[in-house]
């Protein structure tokens, strides 16, 4: 018999205290807006002054522009945009820049990608044959569109947990429930005697993801036993299971005129692959018309040892929240409305966790780390907030202003905290080495997607076409050959089709795009609340030697040479395209001398100048200054 998924805790002292058992745990406390005269900056400055520190000087206009572009849309500014900004780097114009960036469709592509990490989004099943999910991209586009529309967060939550119960006539709502189906699955060959264990693992994926993503609680720890450090008992887990227990994978055909077909429910079987995979449909989750299933606590998480019968509900330690879990009253036994009840409880203004968690995630992506660094764990094992009042203030701003993200972004982007210099200061660093108190804007390595998209932007090749099925750029043949079972096309020459933004790259769980996974795009087996920023020699090899970097460098060289009169101008333009910041005189001289030396080395070749500039571009693409946002 398969052993159920288990967990353990080894290093906690035996006499561990469990303050969260009291309602006093910081994350469970009622959410009230702290008073502030100066918004964000007031809270940050208060902490800084407490440590004998202050803000750094204002960031230089060039660097600030690059920072805000990379942060909000994930693409550096064009030369024209840069020139226009430098002509008027006033506060008023900065606000205009911020507004225009937040209004661009690229904003949703950038910030939607953060959500896709949480949603463990991928385009294949992951297990066994790693079969394609030809309609998974509809969920990805739904997320991007939701960010672009600035959809109220509460609605975004409801749609993803219970869109079908909210309004089953809207295709978007069905597509949204794909959130519950993004985890790895096996439609071809679950072992017969493991079917129930497999089904419960699928449910666990949903419970674990929902509790971490929306509540930053690791409730899945309570599947086999009471949670060791947080106030959740096994019953809490199974009450949530009861909410989902009847649901099954569901496919809703989307007809040509965008009307919906009849939902097709596919219970988990040894082979549950549907013929539908050919057509257009929403990958959804539902339990329409299915008889309610009893849910028992499973002793040690094992379905062979059922215990007490439980109904749907929320963890008892959270029952003091003003938000209440209300099931619809119905004369006949029904499962309808259970998920909506859960979604409403999560999305309620009376759920302090929800708003704190999301406010923290927004901050996290602007500054590289959260006010609570363990962004998906607000429990006792997670971090404490570095600025608790600031977090609550942001959470209230989010909650009390319709749940719109864009106004929060704007407040952060306009703050002094965000616009200060990223320069190192020895004295400040000796007091606060990790800059947790934000005496400077903290530099951090950019995500894989931003690195790739920035290269394409610099070379002039970025194709900004949005949406639709994922693209499959070139994967080195050495890697393709290892994966004969995988069906990634052999791409000899990339073209515009492949040079779309990285968020549109097809995510194959058993063959992640090497250029991205080497730079820490998460394994979509589980939800990911914060990416690593690791450094490896294989990363260096890819960025230095892969045909992608070298090809884009040659494109860049060609463009640059076509528009300039001499080497000096060409080098300056290459530098600006790549770094968005003008070189110092010394940097420029060094770059020119490098290009000159490369020209000599390439002597005799007709395009020696182009190759020399391309060499420079490859070096700059690999430089820390390029891969860091600062």
């Amino acid at each position: 018999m398969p052993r159920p998924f288990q967990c353990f805790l080894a290093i906690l002292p035996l006499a561990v205290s469990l303050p969260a058992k009291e309602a006093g745990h910081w994350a469970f406390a009622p959410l009230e807006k702290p008073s502030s005269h100066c918004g964000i900056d007031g809270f940050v400055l208060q902490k800084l002054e407490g440590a004998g520190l202050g803000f750094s000087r204002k960031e230089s206009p060039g660097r600030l522009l690059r920072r805000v572009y990379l942060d909000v849309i994930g693409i550096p500014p064009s030369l024209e945009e840069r020139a226009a900004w430098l002509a008027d780097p006033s506060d008023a114009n900065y606000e205009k820049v911020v507004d225009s960036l937040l209004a661009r469709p690229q904003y949703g592509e950038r910030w939607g990608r953060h959500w896709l990490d949480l949603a463990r989004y991928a385009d294949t099943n992951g297990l066994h044959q790693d079969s394609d999910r030809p309609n998974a991209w509809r969920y990805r586009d739904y997320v991007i569109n939701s960010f672009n529309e600035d959809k109220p967060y509460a609605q975004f939550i409801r749609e993803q947990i219970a869109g079908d119960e909210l309004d089953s006539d809207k295709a978007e709502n069905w597509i949204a429930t794909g959130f519950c189906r993004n985890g790895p699955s096996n439609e071809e060959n679950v072992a017969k005697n493991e079917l129930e264990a497999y089904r419960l693992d699928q449910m666990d994926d949903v419970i674990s993801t929902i509790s971490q993503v929306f509540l930053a609680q690791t409730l899945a720890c309570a599947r086999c036993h009471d949670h060791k450090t947080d106030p959740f008992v096994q019953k809490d887990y199974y009450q949530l299971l009861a909410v989902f227990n009847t649901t099954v994978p569901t496919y809703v055909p989307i007809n040509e005129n965008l009307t919906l077909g009849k939902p097709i429910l596919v219970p988990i079987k040894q082979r549950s692959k549907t013929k539908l995979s050919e057509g257009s449909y929403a990958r959804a989750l539902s339990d329409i018309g299915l008889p309610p299933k009893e849910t028992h606590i499973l002793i040690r998480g094992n379905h062979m040892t059922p215990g007490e019968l439980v109904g749907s509900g929320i963890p008892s330690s959270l029952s003091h929240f003003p938000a209440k879990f209300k099931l619809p009253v119905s004369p006949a036994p029904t499962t309808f409305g259970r998920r909506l009840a859960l979604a409403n409880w999560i999305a309620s203004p009376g759920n302090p966790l929800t708003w704190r968690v999301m406010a923290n995630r927004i901050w996290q992506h602007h500054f590289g780390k959260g006010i609570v660094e363990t962004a998906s764990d607000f429990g006792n094992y997670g971090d404490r907030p570095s600025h608790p009042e600031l977090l609550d203030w942001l959470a209230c701003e989010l909650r009390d202003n319709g749940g719109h993200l864009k106004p929060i972004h704007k407040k952060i982007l306009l703050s002094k905290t965000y616009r200060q210099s990223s320069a190192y200061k020895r004295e400040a660093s000796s007091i606060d080495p990790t800059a947790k108190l934000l005496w400077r804007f903290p530099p951090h390595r950019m995500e894989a997607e931003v690195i790739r998209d920035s290269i394409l932007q610099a070379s002039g090749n970025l194709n900004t076409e949005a949406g639709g099925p994922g693209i499959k750029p070139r994967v080195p043949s050495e890697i393709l050959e290892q994966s004969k079972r995988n069906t990634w096309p052999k791409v000899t020459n990339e073209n515009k089709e492949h040079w779309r933004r990285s968020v549109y790259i097809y995510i194959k769980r058993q063959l992640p795009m090497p250029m991205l996974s080497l730079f820490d795009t998460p394994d979509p087996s589980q939800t990911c609340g914060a990416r690593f920023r690791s450094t490896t020699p294989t990363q260096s090899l890819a960025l230095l030697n892969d045909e992608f970097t070298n090809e884009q460098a040659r494109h860049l060289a060609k463009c640059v040479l076509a528009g300039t009169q001499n080497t000096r101008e060409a080098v300056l333009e290459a530098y600006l395209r790549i770094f968005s910041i003008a070189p110092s005189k010394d940097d420029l001289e060094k770059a020119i001398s490098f290009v000159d030396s490369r020209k000599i080395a390439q002597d005799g070749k007709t395009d020696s100048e182009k190759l020399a500039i391309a060499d420079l571009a490859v070096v700059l693409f690999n430089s820390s200054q390029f891969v860091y946002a600062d």
Partner: protein
Amino acid sequence: MQTDRRTFLQSIGAGFGTLAANALLASDGKKPHFAPKADSVIFLFMYGGPSQVDTFDPKPALKEWADKPVPVYKKEDGFFQDETKPTAMPSPWEFKKYGQSGIDISGLLPNISRHADKLCVIRSMHADSNNHGPALNQMNSGFIRPGFPTMGSWLGYGLGNASNDLPGYIVLLDKNGAPVNGTINWSNGFMPARYQGIPFRSQGVPIANLSRPEGISEMDQRARLDFLKEQNEKYAWLHPDDSALQARIEAYELAFRMQSAAPEVTDLSLETDFTRKAYGLDNETTKYFGRNCLLARRLVERGVRFVQIYSGGNTGPSAWDAHKDLFGNHSRQCAQTDLPVATLLSDLESRGLLERTLVIWGGEFGRLPTHQGSKGRDHNPFGFTYWLAGGGIKPGHIHGASDDFGYHAAEDKVHVHDLHATIFHLLGLDHKDLTYAHMGRDYRITDVAGEVVHSLLA
């Protein structure tokens, strides 16, 4: 306290800590928990599931019960429940006792038989899934589900890398490509990307992007790297508090060294004709697996911590997954691997490497002793065989026993978690102390179970 510890671990992982500057080099300052018996592991992974009753676990009862239903059979045990039958299928191969230890080995493995006195055969292995994907996950990571770090990642995390110019975790695939799960089989799971396994090819360019781009000479590359170093040193100087910037500089230097070290290690023409022949490189059948075995020896010689070699790739028919034709399948798989594995053992021994290298042989599960169809055997996670040899292992020893039919592990059972615990023990790590904080709890490769099997140790 807890937060400090976690922050500390993450700082190592994320390359932000004070150790990060050295993070890519040598042993990263990491130390085992106690004196290790082995420094490296070569895991010979027989993907698909080799049959124990046809290799290392003779069952005369299968002859007596031939074509009769065996009492231990349950229909639900089969993966292909409609094809698998309750009737015993005797092994088509004869067993003999070999060496002074008298270990039983079938006629399928004449060359490995010569090394019987080196082997420690575990006849009582058991695992939790009878499906390839989850079972591979469990053998590699301890967990049925994907998303967890694999053995080589854990060892890199616990012990660091002992090689200065090669990755510490290398995977050598079958000519038919990766097994099911693909890259998930050597995934770093929730650990940072630096703990990922790196697939090496035994011919041509060993790893992706190792070669310089077309038209770029070594001098060109050095010129690029020198200018890059200048750029990166300047940026690191501007931000002296971020040790990851120092690590980036080191990473490019290591990458440059790998560009010569990796082709050197995979250049098997540097070996003598005698050696290459001994590994079967002169023979169509044995040459592919032989190359990987020879490469594995060259890798551990250079300090690589964990090398995994797969026999079998892609789906069942090109692996040990003998559903339809046990005789044909196992004859083929054994013909490909028997000689190279035997030579690997003697080569390691003669070079003094076997003492400090742990060699592991086995699959994700075994096979049922009953018929599937008329000539095949279905999956069996309930009882199967592994053998270990080398670093710290009791040689010429049989541990545990399966039942009369070789169906279930029966005596001194060894679960996958116990195997992992024992492997880690040999490398100087207490599996219960090697933990990694992730999403609210501390994980280890053995989940909540696993005991070191002391009777396997020398």
